[in-house]
């Protein structure tokens, strides 16, 4: 049996808390030759459902997993092998594959999912993955949290030390805002870098997080190695103010769901647990006030208050701009507003492009940081 010619298809690990996933459906039959990037199956976790793309090319010899069943992360779901491998060898490979068990929460060896930093602006939650390579800092957008990077953090951490934090007023960080605008949020992220001992980092910002990253590049240029601005705020006036108002004012699942559908090209990605998690966040004391203050400062009168294009253009910082072509929150035309940036518009993705087309976005960010 030659293992090099046999490649396992395994249950992916999407983000920090995923322990198991449900194989919703196979998208290819046995006997299909697949190329890297082909959509091979649909997987559903307690957070989100998404399509799994092939990471390796090959001939699908066996579908080991059954659609509709739940499997632990890294479980064997299928086998790729060329035609010259015998069925017996495929069987032997499946037999010998070590099925992982679902990790226990109190597994002493597992790194903590989240940590907390006591910064000068209060307690901030963060996750850190990877040990080697440049430092990358992921900054989520308005109403988001570090789980917005669940399809990115582990992929980026293969060649970098990646931090993702919850901004003040968001996730499990303090609900006190140091300042209810981009400067206030930028100050908080710099304070976070001080606390965890990061002198400078490649900043990746999504939406309002992009505006925060760009503001940091202007306020503290020595601490910003590069900018990756994803569906970023601050590059034009237009914003979907109905989305912002709907997000701030919704208190029930029924109100919030139609609002959240605007975030994705594929509305099926708005799962029950995504809505539940956001409602749980919005109910916490202080969140409503923080969201109202931020939206008043950032998006009063239905448009973006702070335009950063001139500021960013005046900086000597390498900038990548990524946008989903069908962004319903901030129009994709804003991607063209920076002259010296590497601009990438991704088809079939909405505002949450880093979730919907994660592998493409991960590759672009990795390339940008390496180059």
């Amino acid at each position: 049996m030659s293992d090099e010619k046999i490649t396992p298809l395994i249950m992916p690990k999407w983000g920090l808390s995923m322990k198991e996933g449900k194989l919703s459906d196979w998208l290819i039959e046995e006997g299909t030759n697949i190329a890297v990037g082909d959509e091979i199956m649909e997987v559903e976790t307690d957070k989100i459902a998404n399509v799994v793309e092939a990471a390796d090319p090959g001939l699908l010899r066996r579908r080991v997993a059954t659609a509709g069943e739940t499997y632990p992360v890294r479980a064997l779901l299928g086998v790729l092998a060329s035609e010259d491998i015998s069925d017996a060898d495929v069987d032997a490979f499946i037999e010998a594959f070590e099925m992982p068990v679902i990790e226990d929460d109190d597994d002493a060896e597992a790194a903590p999912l989240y940590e907390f930093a006591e910064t000068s602006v209060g307690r901030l939650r963060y996750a850190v993955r990877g040990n080697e390579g440049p430092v990358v800092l992921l900054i989520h957008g308005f109403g988001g949290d570090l789980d917005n990077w669940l399809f990115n953090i582990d992929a980026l951490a293969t060649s970098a030390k990646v931090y993702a934090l919850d901004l003040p007023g968001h996730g499990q960080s303090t609900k006190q805002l140091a300042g209810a605008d981009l400067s206030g949020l930028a100050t908080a992220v710099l304070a976070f870098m001080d606390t965890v001992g990061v002198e400078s980092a490649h900043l990746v910002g999504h939406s309002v997080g992009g505006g925060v990253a760009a503001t940091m590049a202007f306020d503290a240029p020595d601490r910003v190695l590069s900018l990756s601005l994803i569906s970023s705020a601050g590059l034009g006036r237009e914003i979907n103010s109905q989305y912002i108002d709907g997000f701030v004012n919704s208190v029930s699942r029924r109100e919030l769901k139609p609002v959240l559908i605007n975030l994705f090209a594929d509305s099926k990605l708005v799962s029950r647990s995504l809505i539940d998690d956001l409602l749980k966040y919005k109910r916490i004391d202080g969140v409503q006030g923080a969201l109202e203050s931020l939206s008043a400062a950032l998006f009063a009168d239905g448009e973006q208050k702070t335009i950063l294009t001139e500021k960013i253009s005046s900086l000597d910082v390498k900038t990548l701009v990524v946008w989903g072509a069908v962004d319903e929150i901030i129009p994709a035309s804003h991607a063209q507003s920076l002259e010296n940036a590497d601009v990438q518009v991704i088809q079939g993705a909405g505002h949450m492009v880093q979730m919907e087309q994660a592998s493409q976005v991960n590759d672009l960010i990795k390339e940008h940081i390496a180059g």
Partner: protein
Amino acid sequence: MARTLSFKDAVNEAIDQEMTRDPTVIMMGEDIVGGTGSPGEADAWGGVLGVTKGLYAKHGDRLMDTPLSESAYIGAAIGAATCGLRPIAELMFLDFLGVCFDQMYNQAAKFRYMFGGKAETPVTIRAMVGGGFRAAAQHSQMLTPIITHVPGLKVVCPSNAYDAKGLLIQSIRDNDPVIFCEHKNLYAHEVDVPEESYAIPFGEANIAREGTDATIVAYGLMVHRATEAAENLAKDGIDCEVIDLRTLSPIDMDTVYESVESTGRLICVDEANPRCSIASDVTASVTQEIFSSLKAAPQLVTAPHTPVPFSPVLEDLYIPSAEQVADAVRKTMAT
């Protein structure tokens, strides 16, 4: 930060955080602090099942042990609420409702209405409900329908620790009388609960499980029986939606209607006795409002029309089981 917490500890934390936040929150009840005759330590008991243990040490005389007279201290709590405090009164078992019902349904429930909307009665009455505790007929009833019947009383009955904390905080902050029902057989049940304070609005049902074939409506302990039934039915290819009402007054019928409009089948599970129950109420509303959406006759799964038996064997038969719920679902699927 989220960590797992039991239902009992979630109730304790909600009271603790609200007493810390708002100095007008006080608490009274039988044995909620020391208990008559308890030795030395002032905080020896913390309630009959220890739910309020530790609160006296933090908040001192804002917690008061009362004489064994529900009519006196429930009335005192309601009176204090009309005069500017936010009292939490612990009725221990909702079964003791009878001795203080006048203060609740004919006084507290009526003040806002009878004083031209000018009077507010921000009182929370906590009480244990439900069976399975081998506590016999006088300490095991699910009397939620009786209080839900009364306009002016809000009725809450959570199924888990996350909801218990958020709904109790909402109850304490609410300016109307709220009866907060705690199922004693859920006290040890744990789920993720944030450390921060948070309030869950009343009248928002939770969809405990999504499904397309049938809608099971439940509250309290029965949410767990319904979910267990749904998981078992899923193995046979029957995909049930489970709706946890969370609050019985106000009640979120819109979520129930939306679900039944898509599934066409309704099963109501209620630990209360069958006549004039939450189950019969929900069924009546669905048949009246969206009759044409129904593909089969709605099914009710309730306790029988008897007192709760003391015999453990009979008590287990008395409380609706996951098997009974599954059978009721299958009945709706047969047509």
